[in-house]
């Protein structure tokens, strides 16, 4: 079920039963950050990763393992030092310029002065979509995240969980093939978090979008993902890739199933192996 992704970057278990081009492909990506005193820090080393279209891939690891940096490289917010990145068959830069992906951060990052609907319209407005089309599309996406009734409110009138749903609707506004999420539920309380995990799975199924999801929560990664990529810190590397065999569509009951706990245990062990190599 698992394969060390660094040694066989392509054609691993994740690529089962499909000969589609990968949604994301990283080959031998390195990232070095300059540090003080002329030193440099290797943030990512020898990263090879393929993500098949429609997959829900979680990047899981302790802080400092470079999972956010990896996501930012896919999003073309940070350039890799060496290595190639393709997103939907084009370079990461071309994909960004074509608005091929939607992005969700831990902070909702909504614009205070715009209503919820106009926040969702923002990517379409940047893309030059007409006013009427923008409005219609934004309303569709707000219905998708079940926030159609607060379209005319302002972000600061909403709870944190609702704000994050607006951020998801905004990320989906251009109907991207890919959704990149950097700990999007990290700032929310446990109840809201579990509710939004279920919502996220539903949205993922409804839209058929490929998702790359950064998290440091084992249970979240197992419940949500089709594939979990485990990373180790200093330098950030992919140490294991685990395919989650839980049936789809997943429900709340799956959180208590034996298969769920087995996977959680497997992922925990893999993570502990990482931490054993690198004492805190």
């Amino acid at each position, binding site marked *: 079920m698992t394969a060390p992704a660094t040694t066989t970057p392509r054609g691993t278990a994740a690529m089962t039963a499909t000969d589609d081009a990968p949604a994301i492909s990283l080959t031998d990506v390195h990232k070095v950050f300059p540090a003080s005193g002329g030193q440099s820090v290797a943030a990512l080393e020898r990263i090879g990763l393929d993500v098949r279209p429609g997959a829900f891939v979680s990047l899981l690891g302790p802080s400092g393992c470079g999972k956010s940096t990896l996501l930012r490289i896919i999003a*073309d917010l940070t350039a890799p030092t060496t290595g190639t990145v393709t997103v939907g068959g084009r370079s990461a830069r071309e994909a960004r*310029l*074509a608005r091929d992906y939607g992005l969700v*951060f831990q*902070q909702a990052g909504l614009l*205070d002065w715009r209503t919820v609907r106009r926040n969702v319209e923002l*990517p379409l407005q*940047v893309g030059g979509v007409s006013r009427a089309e923008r409005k219609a599309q934004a309303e569709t996406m707000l219905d998708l995240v079940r926030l159609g009734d607060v379209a005319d409110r302002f972000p600061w009138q909403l709870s944190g969980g609702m704000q994050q749903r607006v951020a998801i609707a905004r990320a989906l506004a251009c109907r991207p093939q890919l959704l990149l999420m950097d700990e999007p539920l990290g700032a929310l309380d446990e109840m809201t978090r579990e509710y939004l995990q279920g919502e996220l799975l539903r949205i993922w199924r409804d839209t058929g979008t490929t998702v790359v999801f950064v998290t440091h929560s084992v249970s979240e990664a197992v419940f949500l993902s089709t594939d979990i990529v485990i990373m180790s810190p200093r330098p950030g590397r992919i140490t294991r890739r685990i395919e989650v065999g839980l049936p789809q569509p997943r429900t709340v009951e799956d959180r208590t199933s034996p298969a769920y706990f087995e996977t959680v245990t497997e992922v925990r062990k893999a993570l502990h192996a990482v931490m054993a190599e690198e004492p805190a």
Partner: protein
Amino acid sequence: MGSGIGAAALRTARAFLWTALVLLALAALWEGYKALGDATGGRIPGTGLDLPIAADDQAMPHIADIIGALTEPARRGTDTSLAVYLFNEATITFREALLGLAIGSAAGLLLAVGLRESRFASRGVMPWLIASQTVPLVAVAPMVVIWGGKAGMPSWVAVTVLSAYLAFFPVTVSVLRGLNSPQPVHRELMHALAAGRVRTLLLLRFPAALPFLFAGLRLAATASVVGAIVGELSAGTGGGIGRAILTSSYYYSSAPENLYAAVLVAAVTGIVLVQVLRVGESLSLRNRSTAG
């Protein structure tokens, strides 16, 4: 909706009440100080020392006299009261200051955008802007007046230029801060959306800078009135509250309350301008969480 307007009216009423209370307290302080001076013969009680400011009617006219002076004729042989005369002069100053504020703010806004978008501008121009504000206005004013006069302009043009000269700087500084105020998450969002400089400016930086703009405008409004008054003092011709202050200071020894009345009206002119902006601000920012 009705309750919102009601609440706003209540807030306004409360604000007026507080203003009135503060004014009353200041008047009481003024008159109390005078009464103290009268009682002790201008000494600090228990000591032989003089009061820091003489409390006689020459240095500090009674408030009743200042208000009374407003109802007296402005000059011997005219029917116009001092209040009407000062109001007319203040209208001239208000117009000059308003125009100066508008021109200065527009220039300040453009400068802020230039400073934000061009590294060259921020390195090369900023020191000059700061220098422009350290040069004393009383030194600049006669120059501008002379240039304007040589070019055959009416005196209000020079006055407006001086008003704008003082008004642009607070707008530039505030708006520059505002344009740089969006958080990294917002800047990265715009970058991820492949928004160029212009769109980032229009959709993110300008709206984010709006509260900062109003903070700058409030400073600029008072500065524009000061600029207009100093300009009027230097102009030598033309009207305005600055001229009225100059005239009444000539006759200070015979009618000290006239100068106080003129200064009072000048202050009110500034306050009116700031309050007009306040209305604009609360309308523009009514949907912000940080409004007010």
